[in-house]
């Protein structure tokens, strides 16, 4: 543990005081680790004991946590999950980002020519943030095919995707706009002073900073979107939720729902950790004193 550092000109060896201090730091670290471990174990054991000792636990365990039913329901849920939910949100996230970025930029632009578009953008965000997502899914998934328009698809998947994109686009646009507006005006002044056009200032200076600031809430919205792909299942798409309902209704066991929940969780955690990591790295690179 004791690094034998040499830096060329002066072969430095830590003084005895420093070695002593490292021991103290190490023991302080050990102590806080011990406190953290004990607190964590005590907390989770307490939660576990309270849950398992509750009178209804055996019934709950049999209906929600049955190993047999989990195994039996897994393949069809797994298939539906990848085929629909994952595809829905991967496509959805890409489209939402594009739509939201355009709406956000239009909303905060001050060009007179863009005023009509600004009005459209404002009405769009106000309207679509107000409509419950499930309503939008139903309206588009059932309403559009009912119009019997030539050349328009009746695909449930397509209209479900459109509904999600419209609904989430409005949220994400506002998140991005708040990020853009949080960038200090002096940054725009500096870009102006360098002769950048307003668009270049946005593209190279303001948007990169603004978007980075709102990555956590953006991630939040995307996690929420991943879960809301299940709403398309409510409209009849054979997604993971539908597959689980199918099994649950047939065998009178709710374990498949637990399985679906597990899939959604497993999907979101790596994304959350990855964003945390990227965010942390950018911070350390750019800011002195950030740890």
């Amino acid at each position, binding site marked *: 543990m004791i690094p034998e550092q040499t*830096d060329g000109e002066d072969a430095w060896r*830590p003084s005895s005081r420093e070695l002593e*201090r490292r021991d*103290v*730091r190490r023991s302080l670290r050990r102590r806080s680790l011990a406190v953290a471990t004990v607190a964590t174990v005590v907390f989770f054991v307490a939660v576990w004991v309270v849950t398992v000792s509750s009178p209804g636990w055996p019934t709950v365990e049999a209906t929600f946590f049955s190993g047999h039913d989990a195994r039996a329901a897994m393949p069809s849920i797994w298939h539906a999950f990848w085929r629909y939910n994952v595809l829905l949100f991967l496509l959805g996230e890409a489209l939402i980002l594009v739509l939201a970025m355009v709406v956000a930029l239009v909303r905060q632009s001050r060009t007179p020519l863009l005023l009509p578009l600004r009005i459209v953008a404002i009405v769009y965000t106000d309207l679509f943030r107000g409509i419950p997502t499930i309503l939008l899914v139903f309206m588009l998934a059932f309403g559009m095919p009912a119009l019997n328009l030539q050349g328009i698809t009746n695909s449930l998947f397509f209209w479900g995707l459109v509904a999600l994109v419209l609904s989430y686009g409005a949220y994400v646009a506002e998140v991005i706009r708040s990020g853009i507006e949080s960038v200090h005006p002096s940054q725009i002044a500096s870009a102006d002073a360098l002769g950048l056009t307003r668009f270049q200032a946005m593209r190279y200076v303001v948007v990169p900073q603004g978007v980075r600031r709102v990555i956590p809430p953006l991630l939040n919205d995307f996690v929420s979107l991943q879960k809301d792909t299940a709403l398309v299942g409510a409209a009849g798409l054979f997604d993971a939720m539908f597959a689980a309902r199918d099994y649950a209704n047939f065998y009178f066991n709710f374990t498949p729902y637990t399985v679906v929940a597990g899939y959604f969780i497993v999907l979101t955690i790596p994304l959350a950790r990855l964003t945390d990591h990227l965010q942390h790295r950018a911070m350390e690179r750019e800011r002195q004193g950030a740890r």
Partner: protein
Amino acid sequence: MSRDAALPDASALLEVRDLRKSYGDNVVLRDIDLTVQPHDVICLIGSSGSGKSTLLRCLNLLEEIDDGVISFAGREISDPRIDRREVRRHIGMVFQSYNLFPHLTVLDNCTLAPRRVHGVPKAEAEERARDLLARFGLADQAEKHPDRMSGGQQQRAALVRALCTRPTLLLLDEITAALDPELVGEVLTIVRELAEQGTTMILATHEMAFARDIATTVCFLDEGRILEHGPPAEILSSPREERTRRFLARVLPQT
């Protein structure tokens, strides 16, 4: 100076021994020894990147040091078990880039620590802040937000914020760098006044005239070492080291 003569054996307020600080493989400070008696005004000079800011940050325990000992008021504060916040109650710091809180008015910036850390009642804290603001020519700026003021005004407000907690040691990192030339003299007068009231100061500065004027000791930092130190007349007029001479030739073209 006569002040020093009056306190020949007073125990040091701050004592640094063999301080070392590195960021990864980059050793930024090494073998730093520094003794600060009460009422001393220590000026740190040296080219950009020589470690002045880092040294000040180490003294305020904003950085974890890699070796050496820092004692403040007879107590080792480089001990990991020390309560850093307790130490910082007695040490004020003004940063190169002001670092005022942009969401608070100047007055709120100045009363935050006195009220929340030192438990000074609101009315008293505000009175104290307004007094100091008036002395620094900021009486009419108290209700403004920092971002609406000029750089010089912001730096003076930052100085007031540090003074409002009545620190026994004041660390100033190039505070005159951003001041309008006409205000440098005004701040200098105030800083000297503070010294006479018993405030001990360590300041990093590029203003050699300022250093010559108010320092009791000047330390020349070069690549993380205190290459030489002594009374300003000696260091600034007849330095021993060639590197000091070259540095001074760059910053004092007239001599």
